[in-house]
């Protein structure tokens, strides 16, 4: 495994709260050494010609995906995620631009070379796409069979993979007899059968319940670590990105509107699309408080509301906050989570009975949080 992947592995292995003490520095995820680029998109565009005229699906996408990372593509439905993912194994032919895998442009491959390329790239699907007329064994074996691999070798590979995905003993069952999670496991086994270097996941967990989603994501993370393959996944759920991705690109109307390390994009989303995709994961001021909020205190004992944003640089040190803010501080709500070893999120704090003004309090808090906003005052109940 190369050093890049090793670094991720280390960061991921740390227990979630081991970095909570303010003295420890977060593991840097930003690259110092030149990154090992596995996949590169250069000005990739795709236009569909329809009866109503040309419809742009992808507009001049530039992207770099590093070897051994889990890379997320997120966006609303119709944003072009599927088209972008499918250009990697040429299920979708780009209209212009270049897609380089290890420096080789894949846009110009003939059919034989394309088949060879596709055997280096596994793919799993939202609706699993298993052959209903074939048993689990025959489904997993199919890519090897069409590649002319001898029967004995096929058997061995299938046994090994079904054990890896936790489906031992299900060889002779038909897909219809399996649960959704089990079907996706078969899909994963089938995708890995040629020892691919890239795994494409097309909304792989969108048809699964939350518990099964977690199990499948854990399996993908495990495969990423143990086999060192590069995973590119598309999803419309930010939670999936947070769960397993290292870096992410946000697509909107065929354009890459934001990209970067997951902790950065979560910590400080710049684009409106990213913010609205993140909204379900964010704690907001309850509507009743919002309605009662005033810019100036009416009485000295009114409570000040501060919004402290953590974008992955400061750690939320509650004791220090208590010290600098003085008075009675309380936690109204918020959400701070650890993404790639960094604290990301925001806290809504209440401060009452302080002798300092709102601006002075905010300035104090700015030493301890990445951004501080004065929301206003709420009358004491």
């Amino acid at each position, binding site marked *: 495994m190369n050093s890049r992947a090793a670094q991720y592995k280390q960061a991921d292995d740390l227990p979630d709260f081991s970095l909570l003490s303010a003295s420890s520095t977060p593991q840097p995820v930003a690259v110092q050494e030149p990154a090992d680029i596995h996949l590169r998109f250069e000005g990739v565009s795709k236009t569909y010609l329809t009866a109503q005229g040309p419809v742009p699906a992808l507009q001049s996408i530039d992207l770099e995906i590093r070897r051994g990372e889990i890379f997320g593509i997120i966006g609303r439905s119709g944003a072009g995620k599927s088209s972008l993912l499918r250009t990697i*194994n040429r*299920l979708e032919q780009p209209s212009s631009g270049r897609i380089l895998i290890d420096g080789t442009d894949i846009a110009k491959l003939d*059919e034989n070379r394309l*088949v*060879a390329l*596709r*055997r280096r*790239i*596994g*793919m799993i*699907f939202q*609706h699993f*796409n*298993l*052959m*209903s*007329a*074939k048993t689990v064994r025959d489904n997993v074996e*199919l*890519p090897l*069979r*069409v*590649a002319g691999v001898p029967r004995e070798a096929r058997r061995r590979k299938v046994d090994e993979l079904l054990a890896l995905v936790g489906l031992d003993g299900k060889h002779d069952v*038909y*897909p*219809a007899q399996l649960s959704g999670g089990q079907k996706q496991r078969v899909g994963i086994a*089938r*995708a890995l*059968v*040629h020892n691919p270097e890239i795994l*494409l996941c097309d909304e792989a967990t969108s048809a699964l319940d939350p518990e099964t989603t977690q199990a499948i994501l854990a399996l993908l993370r495990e495969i990423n670590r143990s086999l060192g393959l590069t995973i590119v996944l598309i999803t419309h759920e930010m939670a999936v990105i947070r769960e397993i991705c290292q870096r992410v690109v946000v697509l909107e109307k065929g354009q890459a509107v934001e990209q970067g390390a997951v902790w950065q994009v979560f910590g400080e989303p710049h684009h409106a699309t990213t913010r609205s995709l993140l909204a379900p994961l964010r704690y907001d001021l309850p509507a009743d408080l919002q309605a009662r909020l005033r810019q100036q205190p009416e009485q000295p004992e009114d409570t000040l509301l501060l919004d402290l944003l953590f974008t992955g640089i400061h750690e939320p040190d509650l004791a220090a906050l208590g010290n600098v803010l003085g008075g009675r501080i309380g936690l109204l709500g918020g959400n701070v989570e650890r993404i790639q070893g960094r604290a990301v999120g925001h806290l809504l704090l209440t401060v009452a009975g302080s002798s300092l003004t709102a601006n002075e309090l905010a300035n104090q808090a700015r030493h301890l949080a990445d951004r501080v906003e004065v929301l206003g005052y709420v009358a004491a109940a």
Partner: protein
Amino acid sequence: MSLLLERLWASLLDTLLMVGVSSLIALLAGIPLAVFLVTSGRGGIFEAPLANQVLGSIVNLFRSIPFLILMVALIPFTRLLVGTSYGVWAAVVPLTIAATPFFARIAEVSLREVDHGLIEAAQAMGCQRRHIVRHVLLPEALPGIVGGFTITLVTMINASAMAGAIGAGGLGDLAYRYGYQRFDSQVMLTVIVALVALVTLVQFGGDRLAQKLDRR
């Protein structure tokens, strides 16, 4: 009575021969035809829109001619092919020509219903186009194709009775000559019973097989 039974048995064999041979040829020719009709359309894996349209039109042409007329119109061709326009083998020619496009259209529907996601998955795993036909399209559509072939068999039993009316032999011939022309209601009734039994048997067998093959 024994004479009737003898005639009935011989006629049944004639019917089975006509239906069997024509349906077998229809099966062997209809499946490739159906695969071509499905895969050569716009966006198909063997895209060839022009050939698709030409072949589709030919299929429609034969499908639109009533069997009785087709049979008569084909007499010169039949004579050329089997040397006679009379008898069981002469009936096989128009029956086959009617059955093949009929079955191809039914099989086409089943093939078209195969989830496009499966074809995409096959392409993604490195299947060549012929692999997709052999390992995805045909196995996935098989239950539907078996059902369609059952319908074809029953339709051909019907058509073969019609062929009997112009001297092809078989159960239709027996019923026409004895039952209709000689007002022998006993023969008529016996032939009807035999036909009902035959159709029931074919339908039952076809349904069972399709059910057994369907793993969805």
